[in-house]
């Protein structure tokens, strides 16, 4: 019968599917672990903004001063209305060890000594009055959530609300940031292992 002829032997199918799905998970893990292992170090101040994700559990929302890009530091051409874009944002360390945005572009930014370039997540761009750049552009980087064991978000939230929370992240050469450590009053509270 055609039905049985066409069928891949079930055990082979089991191994193929398991290998395939393990490879996908392995790739997802390694793409992040490699940033933690060898990415460039930056340190950011976080601000107050708690919720729960159905599949990933409780998390604390983190928002960063670098998520609000002043229009004044944007270099180069602006895209059209409603276009889906990503930005490159150059970060430089301040005297207090916290990194802030110094330059941003809708195109790419060349690497520069003493600075790190972050890529934002894609977002829809809407210009301000008469097509000018908006005063502030709000972007996200994919590091706006910190997942915590169930019921443990409270401590972090209170610290965050008193602006005592800092995040150390590592950045891949392509500009993808990855949370590496959470600092409470300058002391690490959560240190992220590679795996």
């Amino acid at each position: 019968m055609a039905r049985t002829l066409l069928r891949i032997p079930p055990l082979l199918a089991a191994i193929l599917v398991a290998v395939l799905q393990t490879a996908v998970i392995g790739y997802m893990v390694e793409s992040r672990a490699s940033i933690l292992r060898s990415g460039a170090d930056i340190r950011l101040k976080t601000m107050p903004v708690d919720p729960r994700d159905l599949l990933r559990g409780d998390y604390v929302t983190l928002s960063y001063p670098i998520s609000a890009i002043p229009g004044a530091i944007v270099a180069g051409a602006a895209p059209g209305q409603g276009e889906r874009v990503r930005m490159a944002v150059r970060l430089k360390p301040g005297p207090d060890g916290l990194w802030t945005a110094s330059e941003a572009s809708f195109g790419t930014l060349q690497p520069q000594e003493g600075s790190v370039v972050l890529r934002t997540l894609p977002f829809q761009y809407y210009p301000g009055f008469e097509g000018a750049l908006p005063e502030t552009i709000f972007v996200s980087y994919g590091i706006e959530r910190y997942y915590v064991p169930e019921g443990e978000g409270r401590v972090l939230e209170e610290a965050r609300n008193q602006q005592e929370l800092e995040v150390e992240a590592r950045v891949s050469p392509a500009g993808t940031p990855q949370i590496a450590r959470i600092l409470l009053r300058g002391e690490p509270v959560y240190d992220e292992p590679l795996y």
Partner: protein
Amino acid sequence: MYRGRLERDLRHWTAAGLLDAPTAARLLKEYDSRESAFSVGRVLMIIAALLVSAAILLLVASNWEAIPRLARLVGIVGLIWGAYLAGGLLLARGAGRLAAAFLVIGTLAFGGAIALVGQMYHLSGDATQAMLVWFAGAVAAALLFRSGAVTTIAAFLAFAVAGNEWTQSGTDEALLVWLMPAMALVVVLLVRYTGAERTRHLAYLLLVAWLGLLYGEYERPATAVAIAAAGAAGYLLAALPQSPLRALARSAGAAPAFYSYLVLLLGLLLLHAEYDDAGGRLLLGVVTLAAAIGGIALSGRENGAVRYLGYLAFAAETLYLASETIGSILGTSGFFLVSGLVVALIAWAVIALERRFSARNAGEGA
């Protein structure tokens, strides 16, 4: 359901002497032996697999510190391997029903593993991509195992992908516009390959939802008219006795007529949002009531799904007109009076025609 009706009819025919009892028993036995027949054991097994999978997903979500996270990762990957190998072994031994349960656990555990990675590395944003990877993993499993149960999971995941993208802030509509029909096509192909016939409806519903999305993207009266017109054309092709495609559509069961009718009603619903003045309401009311009555008249006898959709559209439109009113309460009252008289006239004509037809058929039969 169908089995209950079949059993009742067989008893009725046996009692009337049209059928002898052993034949009736054999017919019922043949129906029960079909693969698509309802089996309590299989359904309970899948429900158990879904409950176990939900436990796994929630265990991941709880981010329980008692298990180190590397152990969680290794554990869930091990679970994926165990579930697929068990499923494969059972399939090889011909225990398809039990195997399906293990394959369901494996596919859902894969989603748990994806969520775990997102949790481990605090990934925010773009959950759509994660859902899409899950969907792709389910499609691969359904394809390689030729599994109907996993095909159904994949179909639900297609909805999850679309729903996730749709509800998140900054929806990428351009992506959804081509992704939704693409996923529906993948599901339809999987259904053909695995024989999970009923899952086909999920793909059709995804396409209907896609039409709604298209309207959101191009929100103009012309879009709504086009959707309604396409639905009407499809429905008439599937249901009109004179249509050359009617035989083909009926060989695919109730679905072609039902879904094109659903698209027609969707288009009319969208038009209701476009025209909110008295004249527009009157015209749309007439068209919608005509569509409801037309569906009941054309397909009422052979297609229960269209008939109930027609009843629903009729009731909803009547309530809508009564609450919004055409001009004034008196005006609406007059509209219903005219509609009632027109429908009564049509009913009288149809009854007369039916009587003539049955008289002629009886004449030919004699």
